[in-house]
């Protein structure tokens, strides 16, 4: 893919010619193999090699034959031209014969024979001036041996010796034919020879060019095919995933309906709404109810994971103290731990800072980890949940769940966060859920800006840690300040207050307002909607820090107020009413001279002051 993208950037041909040249010898063999393809099936490996050699030898003879013929003509020996041409025709026909018949014996003998004959005729024609043709005579038995086999080699070796002997006999007896050199012929021959040579070179160049073009075309087509194929694969993968998502969503929906009835009636009977129930009945019903709850959690997990993969998992940014959340999680699971005789405790340091995360999701992560710990810890063990500042990075909180369970094999510590991974162990419960809990935990923690990991010694328990960012205004305001020297001249703080709204709806309403703020009139990449809770414990107050000019801020406030009114109107039953106030001021001059971090600190200080003032005003009104 990358190569093709580069290719379209420059000129595709010029980009790939250099490697083409480097690969030329290989390419030639590919061409030869392709030529011999009809016989590929009937030849074994050795025969294939010899067949290749046949083609190579034929091509070489043709290539050498032309200049030699020309050379002879330069010397005015016209009679050699038809002989040489005859040789070329026969030799260049050999590969085609081989292709058709597959007979190496025929090919080898044919080349050897025609070569020996030609050399003899050339010698006979040229007389004393043309000793060079005989230089090639040893080639005759060699070619025969390599192509047609050792017996042919021996035969043609004998033949060559006889031929040499014959000419030797002629020479010593003075019977060599004498050649008349006609000066006019010599003159013409030179030009014709030179012209044929030039033509031959041009022909070779043309052949090479065609070969190259063909190879390039093939290369491009292969690339195109590969791209098409990978696009198709990508598309089909996407479709499969989508189908799976829809399937999971559909199944979970279908499962929820009967589960709801089960859940409802069990709870009705358990709560004594359908008459009194006795001790054992209550116990069994409680077990049934707990299992229905587990089923619900499994469906929730499945849905969460599905969403996580398609990027739809909702994680909201909120500010909240972590201590109470941990205590809450522990309280919820205390009974379960108690049943197994496990001591479950939470301990959060007093001054534990406010985390910027989604409390519901944090609860889910801690719940998953604690449940896991209980699952893998034997009777009389203990599970401790602790929260403190992260010793490695003090802009994070670290929450740890330590158990005295069976531990995790060292090799598996990293894999346990993978989807559907589940440690196999004979000692643990037989029912362990779907093995999705840790995968979801990782997804949730990472989506909230933290990370999760485990430490474990087999046999002596495991500790799961995860981190959550601590809220700092300066950090939250990062998008407002771009780079050094690129600070904006003005910034605005828009202060939204929910003046009236029915109590029941306030949670949903607040979520709606935050959503509206994030999506409506602001630029998400440079304006900052402060998380819920950033303005202290004041529900119904929201703030946006936007980088705008003064007039821009007023317009922005007006537009926002309009959107909020429309929102309130849509949620008619909530009787909501909003007030939007915009506070704009110039960026302090010293911001231009400091680093980004310092600039953020200064800006955060100003924003904090403005928000505090707004809070006071609110208190007074």
């Amino acid at each position, binding site marked *: 893919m990358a190569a093709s993208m580069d290719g379209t950037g420059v000129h595709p041909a010029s980009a790939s010619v250099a490697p083409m040249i480097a690969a030329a010898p290989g390419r030639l063999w590919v061409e030869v193999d392709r030529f011999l393809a009809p016989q590929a099936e009937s030849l074994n490996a050795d025969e294939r090699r010899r067949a290749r050699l046949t083609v190579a030898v034929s091509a070489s003879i043709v290539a050498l034959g032309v200049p030699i013929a020309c050379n002879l003509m330069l010397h005015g020996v016209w009679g050699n031209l038809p002989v040489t041409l005859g040789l070329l025709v026969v030799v260049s026909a050999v590969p085609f014969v081989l292709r058709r018949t597959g007979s190496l014996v025929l090919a080898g003998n044919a080349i050897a024979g025609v070569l020996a004959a030609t050399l003899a005729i050339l010698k006979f024609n040229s007389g004393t001036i043309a000793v060079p043709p005989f230089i090639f005579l040893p080639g005759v038995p060699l070619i025969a041996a390599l192509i047609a086999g050792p017996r042919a080699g021996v035969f043609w070796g004998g033949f060559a010796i006889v031929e040499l002997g014959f000419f030797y006999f002629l020479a010593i007896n003075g019977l060599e034919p004498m050649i008349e050199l006609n000066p006019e012929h010599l003159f013409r021959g030179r030009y014709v020879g030179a012209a044929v040579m030039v033509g031959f070179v041009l022909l070779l160049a043309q052949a090479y060019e065609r070969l190259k073009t063909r190879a390039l075309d093939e290369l491009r087509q292969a690339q195109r095919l590969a791209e098409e194929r990978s696009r198709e694969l990508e598309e089909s993968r996407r479709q499969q995933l989508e189908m799976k998502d829809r399937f999971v*969503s559909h199944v*979970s*929906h279908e499962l*929820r*309906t*009967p*589960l*709801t*009835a*089960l*859940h*409802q*009636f069990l*709870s*009705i009977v358990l*709560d004594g*709404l*359908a008459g009194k129930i006795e001790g054992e009945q209550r116990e069994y019903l409680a077990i049934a109810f707990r299992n*229905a709850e587990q089923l*619900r959690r499994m469906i929730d997990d499945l*849905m969460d994971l599905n*969403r996580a993969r398609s990027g*739809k*998992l*909702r994680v909201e940014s909120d500010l909240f103290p972590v201590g109470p959340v941990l205590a809450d999680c522990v309280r919820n699971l205390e009974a379960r731990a108690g049943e197994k005789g496990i001591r479950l405790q939470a301990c959060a340091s007093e001054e534990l800072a406010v985390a910027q995360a989604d409390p519901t999701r944090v609860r889910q992560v801690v719940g998953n980890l604690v449940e896991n710990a209980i699952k893998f810890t034997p009777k009389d063990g203990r599970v401790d949940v602790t929260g403190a500042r992260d010793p490695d990075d003090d802009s994070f909180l670290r929450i740890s769940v330590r158990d005295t369970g069976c531990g995790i094999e060292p090799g598996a510590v990293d894999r346990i966060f993978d989807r559907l991974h589940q440690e196999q162990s004979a000692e643990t419960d037989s029912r362990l859920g779907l093995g999705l809990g840790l995968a979801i935990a990782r997804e949730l923690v990472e989506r909230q800006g933290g990370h999760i990991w485990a430490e474990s010694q087999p046999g002596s328990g495991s500790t799961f840690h995860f981190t959550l960012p601590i809220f700092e205004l300066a950090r939250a305001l990062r998008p407002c300040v771009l780079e050094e020297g690129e600070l904006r001249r003005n910034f605005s703080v828009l202060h939204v207050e929910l003046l009236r709204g*029915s*109590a*029941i*709806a306030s949670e*949903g*309403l607040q*979520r*709606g307002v935050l*959503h509206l703020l994030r999506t409506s009139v602001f630029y998400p990449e440079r304006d900052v909607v402060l998380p819920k809770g950033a303005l202290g414990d004041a529900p119904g107050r929201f703030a946006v820090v936007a980088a705008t000019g003064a007039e821009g801020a007023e317009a922005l406030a007006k537009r926002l107020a309009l959107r909020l009114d429309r929102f309130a109107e*849509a*949620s*008619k*039953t*909530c009787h909501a009413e909003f007030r939007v106030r915009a506070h704009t001021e110039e960026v302090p001059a010293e911001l231009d001279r400091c680093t980004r971090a310092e600039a953020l600190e200064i800006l955060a200080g100003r924003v904090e002051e403005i928000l505090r003032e707004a809070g006071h005003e609110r208190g007074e009104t």
Partner: protein
Amino acid sequence: MSSKKILIVDDDRDIRMGLGARLRANDFEVVFAEDGMGAIATARRESPDLVLLDIGLPAGNGYVVLDRLRKNTSLSGIPVVVLSARDAEENEKLALEEGAIAFFQKPADNESLIAAIRSAIG
């Protein structure tokens, strides 16, 4: 105190029954409808104090019902709580935008559901 009337709209008989039993036990009066058209008709006839609405319904789904209720002047003041088996992530926002006061996914926690209903009409 006269008990408040709640209209339960759900196409599943078992769920209607279960919800009915639970709400009755909490001193609410309940009426039922099993599809979208029925929901509007029953709401007109019975003028309930609150509607507990499913989304996946025959003859006009929950959103259609919400829309109709809001557009009808005599019914627009009735608070609607949506209780659906559908994906909460997608449907909660939509339901609230369409004018529901709360969204619960099935199976819902009884306490929170009752608390939400009470705070709306208590």
